[in-house]
C-alpha cells in the first residue's frame, strides 16, 4: 500500500525519523512560521487577475456623467444627442434605479444615479454604455443636464446653522429632525461631572482631524454580464461581495439567488471598497438592458470623488486626572464632517466614542458625537474606522496630563493600564498585551535616553491604542453565522478550502491555507483556496472591521478539525492506537508517541485514503458566530464597538523638526502590536508596517481638501496621485515592527487582528514627538511644513507678547 512516489513533494522523506520527532515536539507545524503566501508568486509574475484584467466578447464600456454642482435640483436630463451618437448603446439616469441603498440598513440615502437632486461635485447623474471607452466619454459631453443650484455647505458647522436646515441636503427622516444631521450619539458612563470636579489636573483642548482618503493603487472596476438563463454575474473590485450581492439584487429587483458576485484579486482597498458603489449598479442594469457584458473602470479622479475616506472631525476633549495618576473623567464632544451621504456614518458616529476607552482604566466617560452632512464627497470607513481621529485627540491629551503630573508618559500609561475585564463602556476584554507593547517600544527605541533629552528640533513621542477584531454583530441583524468555510479533502492529498473572506492583500487566503496545513498535516502547495465567489463559497460578510482572521479563521479550524478527527480515527484503527496519538503533520500521519516507527508512519494521502474508505467522501463545513453573552453592556448602542477580541498597540515615533522650514521628518517609528498569536509573523509585520506607514502619511503629508473660491466651490483640491501626496519610498521613515502575543481565548490559536490597530498611534505619537522636539503643541492635522512653520511663528509671537507685557 505504501507508495512514496505518490507524494513527490512530501517534505519529510529520507531523514523522516529525525524530522518527525522535531515535528512531533513542535506545538505548531505551520502556524507561527514565516510561510509563503498562496498568491504571492501569482502577483509577482503578473498572473494574478484583477477586475480590469477581465474582458468578455462583445463587452461594452460605460462611463458615468458626474455632477458639476455641489448642491442642486436636477430640472431635466436630455440624453437624446448622446443616444444618437454612433456606437452608443444605452443611457440610464436615476429614474431607472429608483430604489435607494446604503450599506447601513437604517440609512439608505443613496441612489446609483442622482434622483431629483445632486449633493456633491462628482455625484453620479447618468451613465452611458458604448462600444468603447472613447465613444462613451464623447457621449457624456452630449448629455444635457439643467440644474437649479441650491445653497451648499462645506463646513459642518455651517450645515448645522438654522438657515441651512431650511433647504437641507437630505429630507429629514422624521418630522422635526434636521435633514443635515445623520446621527447624534450621547452616552455617559459613570458620574463624569462629579469626577471631573475632583480632578487635580484638568486638560481641555480642541483638536482637528483633517480628512484623508484610502488611495488604493487599483481604481474601482466592475463588470456585469446577464446570461441567457437569467443569471446576472458580476466581477467587482470590492471587499464586501456578500453585501454587494444583496444590494444588487435588491436595487435591481432581482432574485438574490439569480445573482452571482465574484471578487477577483483586489489591488488595495483599506475600507474604500467596503460598500456598493454607483458603478456596480450601473453595469448591472446596463447588462440587463443591453444583453451585453458591460465594464466600468473608474478614472483616478473618480476614485477621489467616490472617497468614503476618513471623516474630518472637530473634537473637544476634557480629561481630568488625580495627582496620583488616575484618569478620573473623560468628556468628549465631536462633530463629524460626513460629506454628502450616510455610508457607514451611523456606525462611525458610535465608533468615534465607543472605541476609545481601552487599554486604559477610566473612571467615568462621556461622549457626544454628531455626524453632519456637507456637500462634499461622502466619508466612510478608512483603516481604523472612526477611531483614529478620537485616538489622536485622546493620546495627545494623555501626554498633556502626564506632563502636568510630571510623569513620564510611558510610566503614566502603565499606571492607568486596565488589564483584562471590562472597559468603562462595558466591553469585555479577555487578553491585553498593552503593557508588553509599551515595554517593547520603550526598550527598542531607547526611550529613556531620548525623551526630553534630544535637544531642540529632535524628539520622541509615545501613544497607545486598541482596536476590534471584527464586530460582534453583522451590519444587517440576523442570527446566522458571521463566517463559514467548506473544506474538501481528496484522495490525492489535495485539500480545498472554500471560504467567503475577501483577500485584499492582507493575506486571508493564505491564513486559511495555513490553518488547513496545521490541522490536516499537508504541505502548503497541497492546499487550494477559493474565496469570495458567491456561487462557490459559503457566506462571509467581507473584509472590514478586521474580522477575517478571528471569524473565518475559527470557521476554518472547525471544518478542518472535523475531517482531521476522521482521518486520525481511521489511522488509529489501522494501527490499534488511540486517535489522540495520531499526529498529522509534515506531509505524514504518524504515531506521536513513537515518531521514528517505520510501521506507524503513513504519507498523508494514504491516511486520507483510509479515512475516505471508512467514512466516504471527505468534506466538512465550519462556521463561526460571535459570543453573545456578557461581551458588552445592555444599554442602547452597547452592541456597537463590541468585538470578540481586542488588539493593542504602542508606538514610539522619533522626529526631527526644522524650525526654519517647518518640515517634519519622521525618522523611525517603533510599533509593538499585540495580535494574539501571529499566525504568520511575516504577514503580521507587513500589516504593522503598512498601518504605521498609512498613519504616518496622514500625519505629515495627506489631506483631502476642497476648493472654496467663488467659481470653483467644492471641487476636490487634488484629485490625482501627484497632488494628493501619498508617500514614496523616499518619504517613508524606518518602521520597526515588534510583535506581542497575548493569546486570546476567542481567537483561532489565540489570534487577534493586525490590519488596522497598528495605524492608530502613529498620528498622536508623531504629535507628541513634535512637542518633545520644539516644545509646541500642534493639535490640528496635518503637520505639513506651512502649518508647523505657522505654529512656531505664532508661539514665538505669543512668547514675545508675554515678555513685553
Amino acid at each position, binding site marked *: 500500500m505504501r507508495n512514496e512516489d505518490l507524494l513527490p*513533494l*512530501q*517534505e519529510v522523506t529520507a531523514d523522516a525519523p529525525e*524530522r518527525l520527532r*522535531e*515535528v512531533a515536539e*513542535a506545538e505548531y507545524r*505551520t502556524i507561527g*512560521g*514565516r*510561510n*509563503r*503566501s498562496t*498568491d*504571492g*508568486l501569482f*502577483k*509577482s*509574475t*503578473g498572473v494574478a487577475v*484583477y477586475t*480590469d*484584467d477581465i474582458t468578455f466578447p462583445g463587452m461594452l464600456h460605460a462611463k458615468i456623467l458626474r455632477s458639476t454642482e455641489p448642491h442642486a435640483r436636477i430640472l431635466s436630463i436630455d440624453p437624446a444627442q448622446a443616444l444618437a451618437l454612433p456606437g452608443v448603446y444605452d443611457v440610464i439616469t436615476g429614474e431607472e434605479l429608483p430604489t435607494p441603498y446604503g450599506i447601513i440598513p437604517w440609512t439608505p440615502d443613496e441612489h446609483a444615479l442622482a434622483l431629483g437632486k445632486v449633493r456633491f461635485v462628482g455625484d453620479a447623474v447618468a451613465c452611458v454604455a458604448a462600444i468603447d471607452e*472613447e465613444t462613451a466619454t464623447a457621449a457624456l459631453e452630449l448629455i444635457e443636464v439643467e440644474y437649479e443650484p441650491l445653497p451648499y455647505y462645506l463646513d459642518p458647522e455651517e450645515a448645522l446653522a438654522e438657515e441651512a436646515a431650511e433647504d437641507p441636503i437630505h429630507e429629514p427622516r422624521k418630522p422635526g429632525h434636521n435633514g443635515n444631521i445623520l446621527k447624534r450619539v450621547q452616552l455617559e458612563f459613570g458620574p463624569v461631572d462629579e469626577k471631573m470636579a475632583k480632578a487635580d489636573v484638568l486638560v481641555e483642548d480642541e483638536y482637528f482631524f483633517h480628512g484623508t482618503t*484610502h488611495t*488604493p*493603487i*487599483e*481604481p474601482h472596476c466592475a463588470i456585469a454580464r446577464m446570461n441567457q438563463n437569467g443569471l446576472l454575474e458580476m466581477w467587482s473590485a470590492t471587499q464586501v461581495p456578500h453585501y454587494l450581492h444583496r444590494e444588487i439584487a435588491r436595487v435591481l429587483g432581482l432574485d438574490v439567488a439569480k445573482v452571482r458576485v465574484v471578487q477577483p*484579486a*483586489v*489591488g*488595495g*482597498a*483599506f475600507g474604500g471598497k467596503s460598500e456598493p458603489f454607483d458603478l456596480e449598479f450601473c453595469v448591472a442594469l446596463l447588462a440587463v438592458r443591453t444583453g451585453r457584458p458591460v465594464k466600468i473602470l473608474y478614472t*483616478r479622479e473618480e476614485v477621489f470623488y467616490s472617497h468614503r475616506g476618513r471623516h474630518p472631525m472637530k473634537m473637544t476633549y476634557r480629561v481630568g486626572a488625580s495627582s496620583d495618576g488616575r484618569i478620573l473623567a473623560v468628556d468628549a464632544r465631536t462633530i463629524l464632517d460626513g460629506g454628502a451621504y450616510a455610508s457607514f456614518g451611523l456606525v462611525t458616529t458610535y465608533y468615534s466614542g465607543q472605541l476609545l476607552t481601552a487599554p486604559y482604566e477610566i473612571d467615568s466617560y462621556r461622549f457626544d458625537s454628531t455626524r453632519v452632512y456637507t456637500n462634499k464627497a461622502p466619508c466612510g470607513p478608512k483603516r481604523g474606522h472612526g477611531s483614529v481621529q478620537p485616538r489622536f485627540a485622546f493620546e495627545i491629551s494623555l501626554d498633556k496630563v502626564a506632563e502636568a503630573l510630571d510623569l513620564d508618559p510611558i510610566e503614566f500609561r502603565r499606571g492607568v493600564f486596565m488589564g483584562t475585564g471590562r472597559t468603562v463602556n462595558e466591553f469585555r476584554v479577555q487578553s491585553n498585551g498593552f503593557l508588553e507593547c509599551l515595554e517593547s517600544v520603550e526598550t527598542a527605541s531607547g526611550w529613556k535616553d531620548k525623551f526630553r533629552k534630544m535637544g531642540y528640533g529632535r524628539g520622541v513621542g509615545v501613544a497607545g491604542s486598541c482596536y476590534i477584531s471584527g464586530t460582534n454583530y453583522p451590519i444587517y441583524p440576523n442570527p446566522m453565522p458571521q463566517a463559514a468555510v467548506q473544506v474538501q479533502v481528496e484522495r490525492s492529498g489535495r485539500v480545498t478550502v472554500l471560504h467567503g473572506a475577501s483577500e485584499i*492583500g*492582507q*493575506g486571508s487566503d493564505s491564513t486559511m491555507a495555513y490553518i488547513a*496545513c496545521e490541522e490536516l498535516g499537508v*504541505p*502548503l*502547495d497541497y492546499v487550494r483556496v477559493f474565496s469570495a465567489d458567491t456561487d462557490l463559497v459559503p457566506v462571509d460578510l467581507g473584509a472590514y472591521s478586521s474580522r477575517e482572521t478571528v471569524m473565518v479563521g475559527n470557521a476554518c479550524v472547525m471544518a478542518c478539525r472535523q475531517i482531521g478527527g476522521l482521518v486520525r480515527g481511521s489511522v488509529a484503527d489501522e494501527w490499534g492506537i488511540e486517535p489522540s496519538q495520531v499526529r498529522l503533520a509534515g506531509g505524514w500521519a504518524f504515531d506521536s508517541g513513537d515518531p521514528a516507527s517505520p510501521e506507524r508512519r503513513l504519507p498523508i494521502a494514504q491516511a486520507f485514503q483510509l479515512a475516505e474508505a471508512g467514512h466516504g467522501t471527505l468534506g466538512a463545513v465550519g462556521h463561526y458566530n460571535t459570543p453573545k453573552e456578557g461581551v458588552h453592556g445592555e444599554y442602547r448602542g452597547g452592541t456597537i464597538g463590541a468585538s470578540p477580541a481586542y488588539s493593542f498597540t504602542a508606538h514610539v515615533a522619533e522626529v526631527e523638526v526644522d524650525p526654519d522650514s517647518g518640515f517634519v521628518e519622521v525618522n523611525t517609528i517603533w510599533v509593538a502590536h499585540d495580535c494574539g498569536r501571529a499566525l504568520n509573523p*511575516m*504577514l503580521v*509585520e*507587513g500589516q504593522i*508596517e*503598512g498601518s504605521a*506607514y*498609512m498613519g504616518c502619511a496622514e500625519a505629515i503629508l495627506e489631506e483631502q481638501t476642497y476648493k472654496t473660491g467663488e467659481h470653483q466651490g467644492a471641487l476636490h483640491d487634488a484629485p*490625482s*496621485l501627484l497632488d494628493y501626496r*501619498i508617500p*514614496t*519610498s*523616499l518619504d*517613508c521613515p*524606518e*518602521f520597526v515592527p515588534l510583535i506581542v502575543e497575548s493569546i486570546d481565548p476567542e481567537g483561532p490559536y489565540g489570534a487577534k487582528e493586525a490590519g488596522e490597530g497598528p495605524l492608530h498611534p502613529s498620528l498622536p505619537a508623531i504629535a507628541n514627538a513634535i512637542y518633545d522636539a520644539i516644545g509646541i503643541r500642534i493639535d490640528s492635522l496635518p503637520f505639513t511644513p506651512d502649518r508647523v512653520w505657522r505654529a512656531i511663528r505664532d508661539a514665538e509671537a505669543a512668547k514675545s507678547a508675554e515678555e513685553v507685557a
Partner: protein
Amino acid sequence: MKDVITLHINGDEIEVGIPTHFTLLETLRYALGLTGSKQGCDKGDCGACTVLLDGKPHLACIMPVYEAIGHQITTVEGLAEGRVPHPLQDAFDLCGAAQCGFCTPGILCSAYGLLAENTDPSRDEIRRALSGNLCRCTGYTKIFEAVEIAAESLRSGADPRDIVAERYDLVFPSSSMRPAKHTAGSSAGASHA
C-alpha cells in the same frame, strides 16, 4: 484610425493592430492581453505601468505606442525564465513584499532595471530607484528587503529561499518555503532566451 505595428515584447516579435492613439500600456493590456502591467492613474503618477525598454524602466501609460517600436520591451510576464521565477519575483513572495500586488509588476521592473546596473545596491539606492513607484500596502520595508535578497541571490547564485531561511534562522524550511523544485533551464520551450 487604426494601424498595424510590429513590437518586440518579452523576446517575441509581434504584429498588432491598434487605434493610433493607443499608449504602450493600452496596447499591452487591451490589444495583446498582457495584463500584468497595471493602470493605476493613467497619467504617469503611480508607476504601476512601469515596463522595461531596452532594460530601462519606462512608464507605459504615458508612452505613445509608436515610441516603443524598435525597442526590446520587457514586462512582468517576461522576467521569469520559463517556469523559473526571477530571484526578484521569488524574493517578493518570500518576504511578503507583495500584499495586494497591484504595484508589484511596476516595482519589479524598476528593481530589475536597478539590479542590471548595480548588483549590490545600498538601501538608499534602492529607495531612490523605486521612488517613482507608489505602493499603498507595505510601507516599502519588505520591498527593500526583497530587492536586497534578490541582489544577493544574483551575486552569489544562492537560492533566495536559502538566503531567507538563513536570515530568519528558520528551523524547518518547510514545504511552504519550497513549493516546487526550481530547476534552472527546465520547461523546455517556454524560455525566452
